[in-house]
Protein backbone atom coordinates (compact mmCIF):
# COMPACT_ATOMS: atom_id res chain seq x y z
CA UNK A 1 0.00 0.00 0.00
CA UNK A 2 1.45 3.32 -1.04
CA UNK A 3 1.42 6.33 1.20
CA UNK A 4 -1.36 7.98 -0.75
CA UNK A 5 -3.48 4.84 -0.42
CA UNK A 6 -2.71 4.76 3.27
CA UNK A 7 -3.75 8.36 3.61
CA UNK A 8 -7.00 7.86 1.74
CA UNK A 9 -7.83 4.75 3.74
CA UNK A 10 -7.18 6.58 6.98
CA UNK A 11 -9.39 9.40 5.79
CA UNK A 12 -12.11 6.80 5.40
CA UNK A 13 -11.53 5.77 9.05
CA UNK A 14 -10.20 2.35 8.10
CA UNK A 15 -8.85 0.88 11.34
CA UNK A 16 -6.31 -1.30 9.59
CA UNK A 17 -4.92 1.71 7.80
CA UNK A 18 -4.87 3.68 11.01
CA UNK A 19 -2.92 0.89 12.65
CA UNK A 20 -0.46 0.82 9.77
CA UNK A 21 -0.03 4.57 9.92
CA UNK A 22 0.52 4.40 13.64
CA UNK A 23 3.14 1.67 13.34
CA UNK A 24 4.88 3.58 10.59
CA UNK A 25 5.37 6.80 12.51
CA UNK A 26 4.96 5.96 16.18
CA UNK A 27 8.63 5.99 17.14
CA UNK A 28 9.38 9.30 15.45
CA UNK A 29 6.39 11.00 16.96
CA UNK A 30 7.01 9.52 20.38
CA UNK A 31 10.58 10.78 20.14
CA UNK A 32 9.24 14.22 19.38
CA UNK A 33 6.94 14.05 22.37
CA UNK A 34 9.80 12.98 24.61
CA UNK A 35 11.70 16.08 23.61
CA UNK A 36 8.84 18.41 24.34
CA UNK A 37 7.58 16.78 27.52
CA UNK A 38 9.13 17.12 30.91
CA UNK A 39 8.60 13.49 31.79
CA UNK A 40 7.87 10.15 30.24
CA UNK A 41 4.23 10.08 31.44
CA UNK A 42 3.65 13.53 30.08
CA UNK A 43 5.19 12.48 26.77
CA UNK A 44 2.87 9.49 26.63
CA UNK A 45 -0.14 11.68 27.28
CA UNK A 46 1.04 14.11 24.65
CA UNK A 47 1.54 11.28 22.18
CA UNK A 48 -1.90 9.91 22.92
CA UNK A 49 -3.62 13.24 22.51
CA UNK A 50 -1.63 14.12 19.43
CA UNK A 51 -2.39 10.90 17.63
CA UNK A 52 -6.09 11.27 18.29
CA UNK A 53 -5.93 14.74 16.77
CA UNK A 54 -4.03 13.33 13.81
CA UNK A 55 -6.71 10.76 13.13
CA UNK A 56 -9.45 13.29 13.63
CA UNK A 57 -7.97 15.90 11.32
CA UNK A 58 -6.41 13.68 8.71
CA UNK A 59 -9.23 14.42 6.30
CA UNK A 60 -7.89 17.95 5.90
CA UNK A 61 -4.67 16.68 4.36
CA UNK A 62 -4.55 16.45 0.61
CA UNK A 63 -1.02 15.53 -0.28
CA UNK A 64 0.49 12.37 1.03
CA UNK A 65 4.06 13.60 0.72
CA UNK A 66 3.33 16.14 3.40
CA UNK A 67 2.06 13.51 5.77
CA UNK A 68 5.03 13.31 8.12
CA UNK A 69 5.66 17.07 8.38
CA UNK A 70 1.96 17.56 8.96
CA UNK A 71 1.87 14.92 11.68
CA UNK A 72 4.90 16.48 13.32
CA UNK A 73 3.22 19.84 13.23
CA UNK A 74 0.13 18.41 14.86
CA UNK A 75 2.28 16.90 17.59
CA UNK A 76 4.12 20.18 18.10
CA UNK A 77 0.79 21.98 18.36
CA UNK A 78 -0.30 19.43 20.91
CA UNK A 79 2.86 20.09 22.88
CA UNK A 80 2.18 23.81 22.73
CA UNK A 81 -1.35 23.22 23.98
CA UNK A 82 -0.05 21.15 26.84
CA UNK A 83 2.40 23.89 27.64
CA UNK A 84 -0.31 26.54 27.65
CA UNK A 85 -2.52 24.33 29.76
CA UNK A 86 0.06 23.42 32.35
CA UNK A 87 2.36 26.35 32.34
CA UNK A 88 1.22 28.87 34.83
CA UNK A 89 4.43 29.32 36.70
CA UNK A 90 7.59 30.07 34.85
CA UNK A 91 10.61 28.55 36.48
CA UNK A 92 12.89 31.51 36.76
CA UNK A 93 14.79 30.29 39.75
CA UNK A 94 18.15 29.43 38.45
CA UNK A 95 18.45 31.83 35.55
CA UNK A 96 20.91 34.07 37.22
CA UNK A 97 23.13 31.17 38.12
CA UNK A 98 22.72 29.79 34.67
CA UNK A 99 23.85 32.96 33.05
CA UNK A 100 26.64 33.57 35.49
CA UNK A 101 28.16 30.18 35.06
CA UNK A 102 27.41 29.44 31.50
CA UNK A 103 29.13 32.32 29.89
CA UNK A 104 32.59 30.98 30.51
CA UNK A 105 32.28 27.40 29.42
CA UNK A 106 31.94 26.01 25.98
CA UNK A 107 30.66 22.51 26.10
CA UNK A 108 31.53 19.75 23.77
CA UNK A 109 29.90 16.98 25.56
CA UNK A 110 27.28 16.00 23.10
CA UNK A 111 29.33 13.19 21.68
CA UNK A 112 29.98 11.81 25.13
CA UNK A 113 26.40 11.70 26.25
CA UNK A 114 23.78 9.35 25.02
CA UNK A 115 20.57 10.67 23.59
CA UNK A 116 18.65 9.75 26.67
CA UNK A 117 21.14 11.52 28.91
CA UNK A 118 20.80 14.63 26.82
CA UNK A 119 17.07 14.18 26.86
CA UNK A 120 17.12 14.21 30.62
CA UNK A 121 18.88 17.54 30.52
CA UNK A 122 16.32 18.93 28.11
CA UNK A 123 13.50 17.63 30.27
CA UNK A 124 14.94 19.52 33.22
CA UNK A 125 14.63 22.81 31.42
CA UNK A 126 11.74 25.04 32.40
CA UNK A 127 8.76 24.46 30.18
CA UNK A 128 9.04 27.64 28.15
CA UNK A 129 12.74 27.22 27.59
CA UNK A 130 12.36 23.64 26.60
CA UNK A 131 9.63 24.53 24.16
CA UNK A 132 11.57 27.30 22.45
CA UNK A 133 14.75 25.26 22.44
CA UNK A 134 13.02 22.35 20.73
CA UNK A 135 11.22 24.53 18.24
CA UNK A 136 14.25 26.53 17.24
CA UNK A 137 17.26 24.24 17.61
CA UNK A 138 15.83 20.88 16.67
CA UNK A 139 12.69 21.45 14.64
CA UNK A 140 14.04 24.41 12.74
CA UNK A 141 11.37 27.04 13.30
CA UNK A 142 12.56 30.62 13.25
CA UNK A 143 11.79 33.15 15.92
CA UNK A 144 9.03 34.80 13.96
CA UNK A 145 7.22 31.50 13.62
CA UNK A 146 7.81 30.61 17.25
CA UNK A 147 6.51 33.96 18.39
CA UNK A 148 3.38 33.39 16.34
CA UNK A 149 2.89 29.86 17.57
CA UNK A 150 3.36 30.69 21.21
CA UNK A 151 1.77 34.13 21.00
CA UNK A 152 4.80 35.82 22.46
CA UNK A 153 7.08 38.57 21.27
CA UNK A 154 9.87 37.67 18.94
CA UNK A 155 12.39 39.10 21.40
CA UNK A 156 10.98 36.88 24.10
CA UNK A 157 11.56 33.88 21.92
CA UNK A 158 15.15 34.89 21.34
CA UNK A 159 15.88 35.54 24.99
CA UNK A 160 14.22 32.32 26.04
CA UNK A 161 16.38 30.44 23.60
CA UNK A 162 19.51 32.12 24.90
CA UNK A 163 18.61 31.32 28.45
CA UNK A 164 17.72 27.76 27.56
CA UNK A 165 21.08 27.26 25.96
CA UNK A 166 22.91 28.80 28.86
CA UNK A 167 20.96 26.75 31.30
CA UNK A 168 21.80 23.61 29.39
CA UNK A 169 25.46 24.53 29.46
CA UNK A 170 25.29 25.18 33.15
CA UNK A 171 23.66 21.83 33.75
CA UNK A 172 26.36 20.13 31.78
CA UNK A 173 28.87 21.94 33.90
CA UNK A 174 27.14 20.73 37.00
CA UNK A 175 27.57 17.22 35.75
CA UNK A 176 31.26 17.90 35.71
CA UNK A 177 31.75 17.37 32.08
CA UNK A 178 34.02 19.79 30.37
CA UNK A 179 35.71 19.26 27.12
CA UNK A 180 37.74 22.27 26.39
CA UNK A 181 37.89 25.91 27.15
CA UNK A 182 36.32 28.41 24.93
CA UNK A 183 38.89 30.05 22.72
Amino acid at each position, binding site marked *: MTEIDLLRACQQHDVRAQTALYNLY*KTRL*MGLCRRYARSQPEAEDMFHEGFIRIFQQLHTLEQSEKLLPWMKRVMVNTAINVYHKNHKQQAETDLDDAWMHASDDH*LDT*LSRLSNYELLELIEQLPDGYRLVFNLY*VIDGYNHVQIAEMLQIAEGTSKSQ*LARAKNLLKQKLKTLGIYSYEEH
Partner: protein
Amino acid sequence: MKNIDPENIQPDDWEDGFRQRFADFRANPPDHALNRILTDLQARKPAPGFRYGRLLIGVSLLALLTGSWFLSRSFEPGPIPIATSASRVSSLLLTPNHTPANQPMKGLSQQRKTKAAQPVEQNNESIRPIILLDPNDRTAPTATPTLVRLGSRPKSTEPPIHAVLPQREAGAGLVSINPSFAAQTAIPLEKQAHWTNPSEPVEDLRSRPFRGYGKVHFPTIQAPVADEAAPQQPVVSRQRPISFVSFMPLYLYQRINPIQNDGVLVRDLSTQHALSTERVGVRIQAGVEWPLSKKVSLRTSLAYNHLSQQVTYTTRNPTPDSVRVERIDEKTVRVTPFYSDKRVETRANWHFVGVGTELVWRVGSLGAWRHYTTMGTTVGLMIGPAQTRTGHPVSGFVQAAYGIERAIGGSLWLRVAPTVQYGLNTLSDRESLFRIRPYTYGLTVGLRR
Protein backbone atom coordinates in the same frame (compact mmCIF):
# COMPACT_ATOMS: atom_id res chain seq x y z
CA MET B 1 19.82 39.24 36.12
CA LYS B 2 22.08 40.12 33.29
CA ASN B 3 20.51 41.31 30.11
CA ILE B 4 20.97 38.88 27.32
CA ASP B 5 21.47 40.28 23.90
CA PRO B 6 19.68 37.79 21.70
CA GLU B 7 21.31 39.14 18.58
CA ASN B 8 24.63 37.90 19.77
CA ILE B 9 23.42 34.35 19.86
CA GLN B 10 24.53 32.76 16.67
CA PRO B 11 23.92 29.28 15.41
CA ASP B 12 26.89 27.22 16.33
CA ASP B 13 28.14 23.70 16.21
CA TRP B 14 26.62 23.10 19.59
CA GLU B 15 23.16 23.70 18.15
CA ASP B 16 23.97 21.62 15.12
CA GLY B 17 25.01 18.81 17.39
CA PHE B 18 21.70 18.87 19.16
CA ARG B 19 19.87 19.09 15.89
CA GLN B 20 21.62 16.09 14.42
CA ARG B 21 21.13 14.04 17.53
CA PHE B 22 17.47 14.78 18.01
CA ALA B 23 16.04 15.59 14.61
CA ASP B 24 15.26 11.96 14.06
CA PHE B 25 15.13 10.96 17.66
CA ARG B 26 12.89 7.99 18.17
CA ALA B 27 11.30 6.45 21.21
CA ASN B 28 8.89 3.66 21.70
CA PRO B 29 5.42 4.42 22.94
CA PRO B 30 3.76 2.12 25.44
CA ASP B 31 2.49 -1.15 24.04
CA HIS B 32 -1.12 -0.40 24.75
CA ALA B 33 -0.99 3.10 23.29
CA LEU B 34 -2.63 2.19 20.00
CA ASN B 35 -5.56 0.50 21.67
CA ARG B 36 -6.07 3.49 23.92
CA ILE B 37 -5.91 5.86 20.97
CA LEU B 38 -8.38 3.90 18.88
CA THR B 39 -10.72 3.48 21.84
CA ASP B 40 -10.62 7.17 22.62
CA LEU B 41 -11.00 7.99 18.96
CA GLN B 42 -14.19 5.97 18.79
CA ALA B 43 -15.44 7.54 21.99
CA ARG B 44 -14.81 11.05 20.69
CA LYS B 45 -16.13 10.33 17.24
CA PRO B 46 -19.56 11.80 16.85
CA ALA B 47 -22.44 9.45 16.46
CA PRO B 48 -23.10 8.33 12.89
CA GLY B 49 -25.91 10.74 12.44
CA PHE B 50 -24.16 13.56 14.18
CA ARG B 51 -22.00 14.24 11.17
CA TYR B 52 -24.99 15.99 9.74
CA GLY B 53 -25.97 17.28 13.13
CA ARG B 54 -26.37 20.87 12.14
CA LEU B 55 -28.50 19.94 9.20
CA LEU B 56 -30.67 17.71 11.34
CA ILE B 57 -30.98 20.31 14.05
CA GLY B 58 -31.98 22.89 11.49
CA VAL B 59 -34.55 20.65 9.90
CA SER B 60 -35.90 19.63 13.30
CA LEU B 61 -36.24 23.20 14.41
CA LEU B 62 -37.97 24.02 11.19
CA ALA B 63 -40.39 21.14 11.60
CA LEU B 64 -40.99 22.12 15.20
CA LEU B 65 -41.72 25.71 14.32
CA THR B 66 -43.97 24.77 11.47
CA GLY B 67 -45.81 22.19 13.52
CA SER B 68 -46.33 24.46 16.46
CA TRP B 69 -47.55 27.19 14.16
CA PHE B 70 -50.09 24.89 12.59
CA LEU B 71 -51.20 23.63 15.97
CA SER B 72 -51.61 27.14 17.23
CA ARG B 73 -53.67 27.96 14.16
CA SER B 74 -55.80 24.86 14.61
CA PHE B 75 -56.65 25.60 18.23
CA GLU B 76 -57.00 29.31 17.78
CA PRO B 77 -60.40 30.42 19.15
CA GLY B 78 -62.74 31.57 16.43
CA PRO B 79 -64.35 34.95 16.24
CA ILE B 80 -66.40 35.97 19.26
CA PRO B 81 -69.96 34.81 18.72
CA ILE B 82 -72.28 37.62 17.93
CA ALA B 83 -74.72 36.28 20.49
CA THR B 84 -72.33 37.14 23.25
CA SER B 85 -71.80 40.58 21.86
CA ALA B 86 -75.47 41.08 21.38
CA SER B 87 -76.27 40.02 24.90
CA ARG B 88 -73.77 42.49 26.18
CA VAL B 89 -75.18 45.17 23.99
CA SER B 90 -78.74 44.47 24.94
CA SER B 91 -77.99 44.44 28.61
CA LEU B 92 -76.04 47.59 28.31
CA LEU B 93 -78.63 49.37 26.30
CA LEU B 94 -81.32 48.62 28.75
CA THR B 95 -79.39 49.63 31.78
CA PRO B 96 -78.76 53.29 31.36
CA ASN B 97 -78.30 55.46 34.32
CA HIS B 98 -80.90 58.02 33.45
CA THR B 99 -84.11 59.41 34.72
CA PRO B 100 -87.18 57.29 34.19
CA ALA B 101 -89.33 58.46 31.39
CA ASN B 102 -92.42 58.97 33.46
CA GLN B 103 -90.72 61.21 35.96
CA PRO B 104 -90.69 64.92 35.53
CA MET B 105 -87.57 66.08 33.89
CA LYS B 106 -85.45 68.51 35.68
CA GLY B 107 -82.34 70.05 34.44
CA LEU B 108 -82.74 68.96 30.91
CA SER B 109 -79.79 70.91 29.85
CA GLN B 110 -77.72 68.90 32.24
CA GLN B 111 -79.28 65.64 31.29
CA ARG B 112 -78.76 66.39 27.69
CA LYS B 113 -75.16 66.18 28.32
CA THR B 114 -73.58 62.95 27.50
CA LYS B 115 -73.40 60.65 30.42
CA ALA B 116 -71.00 57.89 30.88
CA ALA B 117 -72.57 54.87 32.35
CA GLN B 118 -70.69 53.01 34.97
CA PRO B 119 -69.48 49.54 34.21
CA VAL B 120 -72.13 47.06 35.10
CA GLU B 121 -71.25 43.77 36.61
CA GLN B 122 -73.31 41.13 35.00
CA ASN B 123 -72.61 37.45 35.18
CA ASN B 124 -69.27 38.27 36.66
CA GLU B 125 -68.28 40.06 33.52
CA SER B 126 -67.05 43.55 33.48
CA ILE B 127 -68.82 45.40 30.74
CA ARG B 128 -67.40 48.37 29.02
CA PRO B 129 -68.92 51.67 29.84
CA ILE B 130 -71.11 53.10 27.16
CA ILE B 131 -72.19 56.61 26.43
CA LEU B 132 -75.81 57.40 26.41
CA LEU B 133 -78.02 60.29 25.71
CA ASP B 134 -81.16 60.82 27.57
CA PRO B 135 -83.89 59.13 25.57
CA ASN B 136 -86.53 61.52 26.84
CA ASP B 137 -84.77 64.52 25.56
CA ARG B 138 -87.00 65.87 22.84
CA THR B 139 -85.94 69.40 23.08
CA ALA B 140 -82.65 69.22 21.49
CA PRO B 141 -82.90 69.69 17.78
CA THR B 142 -79.19 70.10 17.54
CA ALA B 143 -78.33 67.19 19.73
CA THR B 144 -76.31 64.46 18.21
CA PRO B 145 -78.64 61.70 17.23
CA THR B 146 -76.19 59.09 18.39
CA LEU B 147 -77.82 57.10 21.07
CA VAL B 148 -75.28 54.44 21.70
CA ARG B 149 -71.68 54.48 20.82
CA LEU B 150 -69.72 51.34 21.38
CA GLY B 151 -66.10 51.94 21.14
CA SER B 152 -65.09 49.13 18.91
CA ARG B 153 -68.27 48.21 17.19
CA PRO B 154 -67.61 48.43 13.51
CA LYS B 155 -69.97 49.77 10.96
CA SER B 156 -71.82 46.85 9.63
CA THR B 157 -73.66 46.35 6.42
CA GLU B 158 -75.71 43.62 7.96
CA PRO B 159 -79.42 44.23 8.16
CA PRO B 160 -80.52 45.85 11.35
CA ILE B 161 -81.19 43.63 14.29
CA HIS B 162 -84.85 42.85 14.49
CA ALA B 163 -86.46 43.40 17.75
CA VAL B 164 -89.05 41.22 19.36
CA LEU B 165 -90.42 42.19 22.66
CA PRO B 166 -90.66 39.43 25.17
CA GLN B 167 -93.96 38.26 26.45
CA ARG B 168 -95.29 40.57 29.03
CA GLU B 169 -96.57 39.33 32.26
CA ALA B 170 -100.07 40.35 33.12
CA GLY B 171 -100.14 43.72 34.64
CA ALA B 172 -96.45 44.22 34.34
CA GLY B 173 -96.74 47.07 31.96
CA LEU B 174 -93.02 47.41 31.74
CA VAL B 175 -90.39 45.71 29.72
CA SER B 176 -87.04 45.15 31.19
CA ILE B 177 -84.41 42.55 30.66
CA ASN B 178 -82.54 43.38 33.77
CA PRO B 179 -84.99 43.37 36.64
CA SER B 180 -82.66 45.16 38.96
CA PHE B 181 -82.85 48.18 36.78
CA ALA B 182 -86.51 47.85 36.00
CA ALA B 183 -87.43 51.01 37.73
CA GLN B 184 -84.90 53.01 35.86
CA THR B 185 -85.51 51.46 32.50
CA ALA B 186 -89.24 51.37 32.60
CA ILE B 187 -90.91 52.44 29.43
CA PRO B 188 -94.60 53.08 29.37
CA LEU B 189 -96.36 50.41 27.48
CA GLU B 190 -98.32 52.78 25.35
CA LYS B 191 -95.12 54.31 24.12
CA GLN B 192 -93.64 51.04 23.06
CA ALA B 193 -93.79 49.81 19.59
CA HIS B 194 -95.13 46.39 18.93
CA TRP B 195 -92.87 44.40 16.75
CA THR B 196 -93.94 40.94 16.35
CA ASN B 197 -92.42 39.96 13.09
CA PRO B 198 -88.69 39.43 13.44
CA SER B 199 -88.20 39.66 9.74
CA GLU B 200 -89.77 43.05 9.50
CA PRO B 201 -87.17 45.72 9.86
CA VAL B 202 -87.76 48.42 12.31
CA GLU B 203 -88.03 51.80 10.80
CA ASP B 204 -85.55 54.10 12.22
CA LEU B 205 -87.43 57.18 13.28
CA ARG B 206 -84.72 58.64 15.28
CA SER B 207 -83.58 61.02 12.64
CA ARG B 208 -87.02 61.89 11.28
CA PRO B 209 -88.33 65.32 12.21
CA PHE B 210 -91.45 64.99 14.29
CA ARG B 211 -93.87 67.83 14.45
CA GLY B 212 -92.20 70.75 15.99
CA TYR B 213 -89.98 68.85 18.30
CA GLY B 214 -87.14 68.38 15.95
CA LYS B 215 -85.59 65.00 16.00
CA VAL B 216 -87.21 62.37 18.10
CA HIS B 217 -85.03 60.17 20.16
CA PHE B 218 -86.37 56.80 20.93
CA PRO B 219 -84.69 54.49 23.30
CA THR B 220 -83.03 51.68 21.52
CA ILE B 221 -84.63 48.42 22.35
CA GLN B 222 -82.85 45.21 21.81
CA ALA B 223 -84.49 41.88 21.58
CA PRO B 224 -83.49 38.95 23.69
CA VAL B 225 -80.64 37.19 22.14
CA ALA B 226 -82.40 33.89 22.01
CA ASP B 227 -84.92 35.29 19.60
CA GLU B 228 -82.41 36.62 17.20
CA ALA B 229 -81.70 34.86 14.05
CA ALA B 230 -78.37 33.11 14.16
CA PRO B 231 -75.89 35.57 12.76
CA GLN B 232 -73.78 34.58 9.91
CA GLN B 233 -70.31 33.76 11.07
CA PRO B 234 -67.79 36.11 9.64
CA VAL B 235 -65.44 34.53 7.20
CA VAL B 236 -61.88 34.43 8.47
CA SER B 237 -59.42 34.62 5.66
CA ARG B 238 -56.78 32.07 6.56
CA GLN B 239 -53.53 32.23 4.66
CA ARG B 240 -52.82 28.89 3.15
CA PRO B 241 -49.47 27.38 2.28
CA ILE B 242 -48.22 28.01 -1.21
CA SER B 243 -46.64 25.28 -3.26
CA PHE B 244 -44.19 26.20 -5.94
CA VAL B 245 -41.69 24.82 -8.41
CA SER B 246 -38.87 26.73 -10.06
CA PHE B 247 -36.08 26.36 -12.54
CA MET B 248 -32.92 28.39 -12.63
CA PRO B 249 -30.10 28.24 -15.16
CA LEU B 250 -26.86 28.81 -13.35
CA TYR B 251 -24.24 31.13 -14.71
CA LEU B 252 -20.80 31.17 -13.30
CA TYR B 253 -18.94 33.93 -11.64
CA GLN B 254 -15.98 32.37 -10.01
CA ARG B 255 -12.29 31.78 -9.88
CA ILE B 256 -10.76 28.52 -10.92
CA ASN B 257 -7.67 27.56 -9.04
CA PRO B 258 -5.33 24.88 -10.32
CA ILE B 259 -4.48 22.29 -7.74
CA GLN B 260 -0.76 22.17 -7.25
CA ASN B 261 0.55 18.76 -8.13
CA ASP B 262 4.19 17.96 -8.29
CA GLY B 263 5.55 17.43 -11.75
CA VAL B 264 2.53 18.79 -13.55
CA LEU B 265 2.86 22.14 -15.15
CA VAL B 266 -0.39 23.71 -16.13
CA ARG B 267 -0.60 26.88 -18.12
CA ASP B 268 -2.92 28.71 -20.47
CA LEU B 269 -5.86 27.98 -18.31
CA SER B 270 -9.11 28.95 -19.99
CA THR B 271 -12.77 28.15 -19.92
CA GLN B 272 -15.21 27.65 -22.70
CA HIS B 273 -16.65 31.12 -22.47
CA ALA B 274 -15.92 34.22 -20.57
CA LEU B 275 -16.27 33.49 -16.91
CA SER B 276 -19.29 35.61 -16.37
CA THR B 277 -21.32 34.25 -19.26
CA GLU B 278 -20.79 30.55 -19.02
CA ARG B 279 -23.78 28.53 -18.08
CA VAL B 280 -22.62 25.83 -15.76
CA GLY B 281 -25.78 24.06 -14.78
CA VAL B 282 -29.26 24.30 -13.47
CA ARG B 283 -31.06 24.43 -10.19
CA ILE B 284 -34.49 22.87 -9.82
CA GLN B 285 -36.43 23.62 -6.71
CA ALA B 286 -39.83 22.61 -5.41
CA GLY B 287 -41.38 23.21 -2.07
CA VAL B 288 -43.93 24.91 0.09
CA GLU B 289 -44.14 28.38 1.56
CA TRP B 290 -45.68 28.62 4.98
CA PRO B 291 -47.11 32.04 5.76
CA LEU B 292 -45.79 33.33 9.05
CA SER B 293 -47.45 36.69 8.84
CA LYS B 294 -49.07 38.86 6.27
CA LYS B 295 -45.75 39.72 4.69
CA VAL B 296 -43.34 37.02 5.72
CA SER B 297 -43.35 33.37 4.73
CA LEU B 298 -41.02 30.51 5.44
CA ARG B 299 -40.04 28.58 2.37
CA THR B 300 -38.97 24.98 2.66
CA SER B 301 -37.91 23.20 -0.45
CA LEU B 302 -36.03 20.38 -2.05
CA ALA B 303 -33.34 21.53 -4.43
CA TYR B 304 -31.26 19.82 -7.05
CA ASN B 305 -28.22 21.48 -8.52
CA HIS B 306 -26.24 20.29 -11.45
CA LEU B 307 -22.97 22.06 -12.03
CA SER B 308 -20.48 21.36 -14.72
CA GLN B 309 -17.28 23.07 -15.61
CA GLN B 310 -15.31 22.72 -18.78
CA VAL B 311 -11.74 23.90 -18.65
CA THR B 312 -8.90 23.62 -21.11
CA TYR B 313 -5.28 23.96 -20.26
CA THR B 314 -1.88 23.26 -21.65
CA THR B 315 0.48 20.81 -20.08
CA ARG B 316 3.57 18.92 -21.06
CA ASN B 317 3.43 15.39 -22.32
CA PRO B 318 4.67 13.01 -19.66
CA THR B 319 6.90 11.14 -22.09
CA PRO B 320 9.37 12.74 -24.47
CA ASP B 321 8.46 12.88 -28.10
CA SER B 322 12.04 12.79 -29.30
CA VAL B 323 15.51 12.53 -27.95
CA ARG B 324 18.60 14.26 -29.23
CA VAL B 325 21.83 12.33 -28.67
CA GLU B 326 25.13 14.14 -28.87
CA ARG B 327 28.47 12.58 -28.57
CA ILE B 328 30.66 14.60 -26.27
CA ASP B 329 33.70 12.38 -26.40
CA GLU B 330 34.45 8.76 -26.82
CA LYS B 331 33.01 7.82 -23.45
CA THR B 332 30.30 10.44 -22.99
CA VAL B 333 26.99 10.88 -24.70
CA ARG B 334 24.59 13.71 -23.96
CA VAL B 335 20.92 12.74 -24.21
CA THR B 336 18.42 15.57 -24.43
CA PRO B 337 14.72 14.64 -24.36
CA PHE B 338 12.18 16.89 -26.05
CA TYR B 339 8.69 17.18 -24.75
CA SER B 340 5.81 18.60 -26.64
CA ASP B 341 2.85 20.35 -25.11
CA LYS B 342 -0.63 19.09 -25.29
CA ARG B 343 -3.91 20.85 -24.90
CA VAL B 344 -6.16 19.12 -22.42
CA GLU B 345 -9.87 19.63 -22.13
CA THR B 346 -11.61 18.49 -19.03
CA ARG B 347 -15.15 18.67 -17.81
CA ALA B 348 -16.14 18.22 -14.23
CA ASN B 349 -19.69 17.54 -13.10
CA TRP B 350 -21.24 17.96 -9.72
CA HIS B 351 -24.67 16.87 -8.56
CA PHE B 352 -26.12 18.27 -5.40
CA VAL B 353 -29.34 17.49 -3.58
CA GLY B 354 -30.35 19.52 -0.58
CA VAL B 355 -33.01 20.94 1.63
CA GLY B 356 -33.57 24.65 1.43
CA THR B 357 -34.89 27.04 4.00
CA GLU B 358 -35.60 30.62 3.04
CA LEU B 359 -37.49 33.58 4.32
CA VAL B 360 -39.79 35.24 1.83
CA TRP B 361 -40.71 38.85 2.38
CA ARG B 362 -43.46 40.36 0.30
CA VAL B 363 -42.38 43.88 -0.47
CA GLY B 364 -45.55 45.13 -2.09
CA SER B 365 -47.31 45.25 -5.40
CA LEU B 366 -47.14 47.36 -8.50
CA GLY B 367 -50.04 46.89 -10.83
CA ALA B 368 -50.58 43.22 -11.41
CA TRP B 369 -47.10 42.36 -10.22
CA ARG B 370 -46.19 41.58 -6.68
CA HIS B 371 -42.67 42.04 -5.47
CA TYR B 372 -40.87 39.85 -3.00
CA THR B 373 -37.40 39.04 -1.78
CA THR B 374 -35.99 35.79 -0.51
CA MET B 375 -32.90 34.86 1.39
CA GLY B 376 -31.82 31.54 2.83
CA THR B 377 -29.62 28.52 2.66
CA THR B 378 -29.62 25.11 1.08
CA VAL B 379 -27.76 22.32 2.79
CA GLY B 380 -27.34 18.87 1.34
CA LEU B 381 -25.11 16.24 -0.12
CA MET B 382 -22.95 15.93 -3.18
CA ILE B 383 -24.33 12.85 -4.82
CA GLY B 384 -22.28 13.00 -7.98
CA PRO B 385 -18.70 12.02 -8.55
CA ALA B 386 -17.49 15.26 -7.06
CA GLN B 387 -16.50 15.83 -3.52
CA THR B 388 -15.81 18.88 -1.51
CA ARG B 389 -12.27 19.87 -1.04
CA THR B 390 -12.08 18.19 2.30
CA GLY B 391 -13.64 15.05 0.95
CA HIS B 392 -16.76 15.68 2.93
CA PRO B 393 -19.95 15.10 0.98
CA VAL B 394 -21.91 17.72 2.88
CA SER B 395 -22.13 20.99 1.07
CA GLY B 396 -24.36 24.01 0.96
CA PHE B 397 -25.29 27.23 -0.70
CA VAL B 398 -26.50 30.61 0.40
CA GLN B 399 -28.90 32.25 -1.98
CA ALA B 400 -30.83 35.46 -2.28
CA ALA B 401 -33.31 36.70 -4.84
CA TYR B 402 -35.55 39.62 -5.70
CA GLY B 403 -38.57 38.50 -7.62
CA ILE B 404 -41.87 39.49 -9.09
CA GLU B 405 -44.99 37.40 -9.56
CA ARG B 406 -48.36 37.75 -11.15
CA ALA B 407 -51.45 35.67 -11.65
CA ILE B 408 -51.63 33.92 -14.99
CA GLY B 409 -55.03 32.32 -14.68
CA GLY B 410 -56.77 30.04 -12.33
CA SER B 411 -54.80 29.78 -9.16
CA LEU B 412 -51.47 29.75 -10.94
CA TRP B 413 -48.93 32.51 -10.53
CA LEU B 414 -45.83 33.09 -12.59
CA ARG B 415 -42.66 34.00 -10.78
CA VAL B 416 -39.47 35.52 -12.12
CA ALA B 417 -36.61 36.22 -9.78
CA PRO B 418 -32.99 37.17 -10.46
CA THR B 419 -31.04 35.04 -8.02
CA VAL B 420 -27.49 34.83 -6.76
CA GLN B 421 -26.10 31.72 -5.15
CA TYR B 422 -22.88 31.32 -3.22
CA GLY B 423 -21.26 27.97 -2.62
CA LEU B 424 -20.12 27.30 0.90
CA ASN B 425 -17.61 24.64 -0.09
CA THR B 426 -14.86 24.39 -2.59
CA LEU B 427 -15.44 21.51 -4.94
CA SER B 428 -12.95 19.23 -6.58
CA ASP B 429 -13.63 16.14 -8.58
CA ARG B 430 -10.14 14.80 -7.85
CA GLU B 431 -9.76 13.85 -11.47
CA SER B 432 -9.21 17.21 -12.99
CA LEU B 433 -6.63 19.62 -11.80
CA PHE B 434 -8.99 22.29 -10.72
CA ARG B 435 -10.92 23.39 -7.77
CA ILE B 436 -14.08 25.38 -8.05
CA ARG B 437 -16.07 27.45 -5.63
CA PRO B 438 -19.41 28.03 -7.28
CA TYR B 439 -20.51 31.62 -7.23
CA THR B 440 -23.45 31.51 -9.55
CA TYR B 441 -26.27 33.71 -10.64
CA GLY B 442 -29.29 33.23 -12.82
CA LEU B 443 -32.91 33.95 -13.45
CA THR B 444 -35.29 31.77 -11.53
CA VAL B 445 -38.53 31.10 -13.34
CA GLY B 446 -41.26 29.30 -11.52
CA LEU B 447 -44.90 28.67 -10.88
CA ARG B 448 -46.83 28.72 -7.68
CA ARG B 449 -50.36 28.11 -6.60
